[in-house]
């Protein structure tokens, strides 16, 4: 590990581990941040960066490992404790109170008190204005936080950190939603904070930014520490290679597809502020992977196609016939199936029996004279559960008692019972153990072999590369690349997902001042 000036370290994490149930989110995280430096933390989605940040922030407690802050061993049980110690975290999604004023958001919980323990609003406004002046922004301290652009919300978060006089500032993908000018401004602020001797952790997927701003870079992969280098002593290709770092294993039993006719055709799909001008097609027997970073808009596109959410313009066609927008029933009738990202919340009635879950979408066809019997449900469910090898003692068991992998199989079984032409599957193996992962993958491969068109969304790059016949890369609501299986490499996909192939446009646009 890097550490000639270990005494200067403001934050030191060594071999920190954290598991959630059976899933190890962080196996061995290490990070040393020095005073007066900006330290980049990079890794794929799911590499454990966010878990690491949450441990430092006091959201989670580590299971094992060393955690030192300003030279002393610490163990934060709450966000209040870490904040009091001088750690400020700016999360990917700003956490503000929309109903309260900008100033109240900065000072909430530690408002300036005047006589008689009254909140001294005048002093708070003055302080907020002083901070904004320092940051070079003109925000009305009295306006409510609701309706602020993401950039302004991040400014509020930074103002919070400054008013806290934090000695460590962690920024979790702060630039994901910012334009060129806003990024420049944020960097100027970050540099001035560094020059004051604070330590800054910068998490980003944009390598041009990492190399522009940071002094040091730490790479994580699969919940483990990989390397730490001075920025000057490394380059983008080296970092990307370390981030990806592994072979696409036998985990992915993909058989070459017999591509048939076009099943799904999406043209010019746009939804204000979410995605725009999305066009692609999926053929029968083909698995098309939608890759991209968390928040790039992949799930939103899938939800719009399936009719859960609306869209502003564009068309969706299935087998050549248009599918009406915002109409899930029509989408199911047309032959679509959708396995959502969060199976507990969106895909399963966890309190119901396995049989009932599997039979839930075909219920109309099972009912006799309007009545639905458990026997009919069981009859319909049995072949599917058998085929998927769902390991439950009986079909009557409640779905909530099953493991994540088996739950996922039940969700897939539920949709297979509708005999779909197109299967949209979002993060099929999240939180599933390795063995079951391979089973889910084999199932997908078999389905494609039977001529089902599959749209696979995954944040795990190896999964996309291993399973997809074609990879579409989504970046900030747009499809930035369409790569054939033979040509799909982790580097290519990551470049397209972060747009680091072409420079971030730093053309100042005057029309940034758009506040209602």
């Amino acid at each position, binding site marked *: 590990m890097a550490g000639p000036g270990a005494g200067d370290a403001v934050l030191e994490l060594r071999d920190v581990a954290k598991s959630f149930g059976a899933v190890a989110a962080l196996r061995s995280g290490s990070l040393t941040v020095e005073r007066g430096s900006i330290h980049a933390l990079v890794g794929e989605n799911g590499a454990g960066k966010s878990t690491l940040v949450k441990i430092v922030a006091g959201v989670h407690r580590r299971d094992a490992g060393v955690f030192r802050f300003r030279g002393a061993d610490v163990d934060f049980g709450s966000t209040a404790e870490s904040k009091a110690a001088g750690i400020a975290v700016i999360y990917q999604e700003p*956490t503000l109170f929309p109903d309260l004023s900008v100033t109240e958001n900065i000072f*909430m919980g530690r408002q300036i008190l005047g006589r008689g323990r009254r909140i001294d609003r005048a002093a708070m406004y003055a302080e907020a204005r002083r901070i904004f002046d320092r940051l070079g922004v*003109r925000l009305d301290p009295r306006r409510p936080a*609701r309706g602020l652009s993401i950039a302004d919300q991040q400014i509020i978060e930074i103002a919070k950190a400054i008013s806290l006089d934090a000695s460590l500032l962690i920024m979790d993908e702060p630039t994901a939603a910012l334009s060129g000018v806003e990024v420049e401004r944020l960097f100027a602020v970050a540099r001035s904070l560094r020059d004051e001797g604070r330590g800054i952790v910068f998490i980003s997927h944009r390598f041009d930014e990492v190399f522009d701003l940071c002094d040091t870079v730490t790479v994580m992969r699969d919940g483990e520490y990989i390397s730490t280098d001075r920025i000057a002593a490394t380059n983008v290709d080296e970092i990307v290679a370390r981030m990806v770092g592994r072979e696409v294993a036998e985990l992915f039993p993909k058989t070459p597809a017999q591509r048939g006719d076009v099943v799904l055709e999406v043209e010019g799909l746009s939804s204000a502020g979410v995605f725009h001008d999305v066009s692609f097609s999926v053929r029968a027997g083909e698995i098309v992977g939608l890759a991209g970073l968390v928040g790039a808009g992949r799930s939103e596109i899938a939800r719009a196609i399936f009719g859960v959410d609306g869209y502003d313009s564009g068309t969706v066609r299935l087998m050549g016939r248009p599918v009406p927008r915002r109409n899930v029933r029509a989408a199911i009738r047309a032959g679509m199936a959708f396995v959502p990202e969060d199976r507990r919340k969106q895909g399963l009635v966890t309190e119901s029996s396995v049989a009932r879950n599997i039979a839930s979408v075909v219920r109309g066809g099972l009912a006799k004279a309007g009545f639905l019997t458990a026997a009919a449900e069981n009859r319909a469910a049995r072949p599917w559960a058998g085929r998927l090898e769902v390991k439950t003692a009986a079909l009557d068991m409640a779905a909530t008692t099953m493991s994540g992998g088996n739950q996922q199989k039940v969700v897939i079984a539920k949709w297979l019972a509708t005999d779909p032409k197109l299967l949209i599957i979002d993060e099929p193996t999240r939180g599933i153990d390795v063995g079951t992962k391979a089973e889910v993958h084999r199932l997908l491969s078999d389905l494609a072999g039977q001529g089902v068109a599959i749209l696979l969304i995954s944040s795990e790059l190896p999964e996309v590369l291993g399973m997809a016949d074609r990879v579409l890369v989504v970046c900030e609501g747009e499809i930035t690349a369409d790569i054939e299986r033979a040509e799909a490499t982790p580097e290519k996909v990551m470049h397209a997902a972060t747009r680091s192939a072409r420079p971030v446009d730093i053309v100042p646009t005057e029309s940034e001042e758009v506040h209602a």
Partner: protein
Amino acid sequence: MSALTLSPSELSPLRRILGGALRSREIAVAVVLVLVVLATTVKNDQFLFGANGWRDLLLTPSILLLLAVGETAVIITRNVDLSVGSVVGLTAYLTGRIFIANPGMPVFLVFIIGLAFGGALGLINGLLVSFGKVPALVITLGTLYIYRGVFLTWAGANRVNASDMPDGFLKLGTEQVLTIPVLTIIAVVMLALVGYYLYTARGGRELYAIGSDPAAADLYGLRVTRRVLAAFVLSGAMAGLAGVATAARYGTVSSDAGLNLELQAVGAAVIGGVAIFGGSGTVWGAAIGAFLLVTINRALPVLGVQDFWQQFVVGVLIIGSIVLDRVLTLRRDRKIIEAREVA
């Protein structure tokens, strides 16, 4: 650095105050209230200038006002307290029993006991909501029935009559100081205390923060459980006070004391601009809402409006306020998105 400025949204103080006043829900509801009173007085001048016109105008809403103040504190935290009507009934009956058992009891002490008893019932609500991790709607719907059930079991076929309570206490129900009824003064003092706390104390502002975004409140390290608990205790205590006031005002306590008051309390808060999903609204607005709700109920018969239409008007008021809020929110959100798309 100054070339990178973002949003010059600073307004002059005068424009800010004026704009705020024009958009203020409190003032809008107050204007409606004044119009209702004026229209009714024009139709029948006894409404305001009759023997008890002025007194009743101020006195009748005082009980609902107390409830609305407590309810607002709870709703601001994105919860709701449906048990307040039952707390009123139970406390009113307790008041009667105290006087039956101990006729010489100082009136002041009875008010304190009512406040504490209501607070204890509120604490039960708060504990169940905070630690049971069950929505307040369900918990307080349950305690609504439980508290009412305790009341009915305890009272049995008995009821408290005016003769059971000392004259000094009953006089308080209608007494006036400088033409202003004592119960109204009590209610307004409570309103002022809570209003002041919500605006100027850390704890008060944290209630707004919790209701505005509970997840963010956790990340800020606010003591969410303790604050929510406090809000429920306050709501219960206000209902307890209202229970004592009910006994003093009406002289008798029968089994239907406080029945359905919880819905009026929620209605008053909503009409007064307290967002049902928490985070915004003031007790001042809720208080004016309570005044409007009670006054409309009294005014409509004077105006010759039939029974059905009286209920109808109240319903329209509540739905109207919510729809108005929703429409304004949607319009504002759409504008913001459009502005971003242009950029």
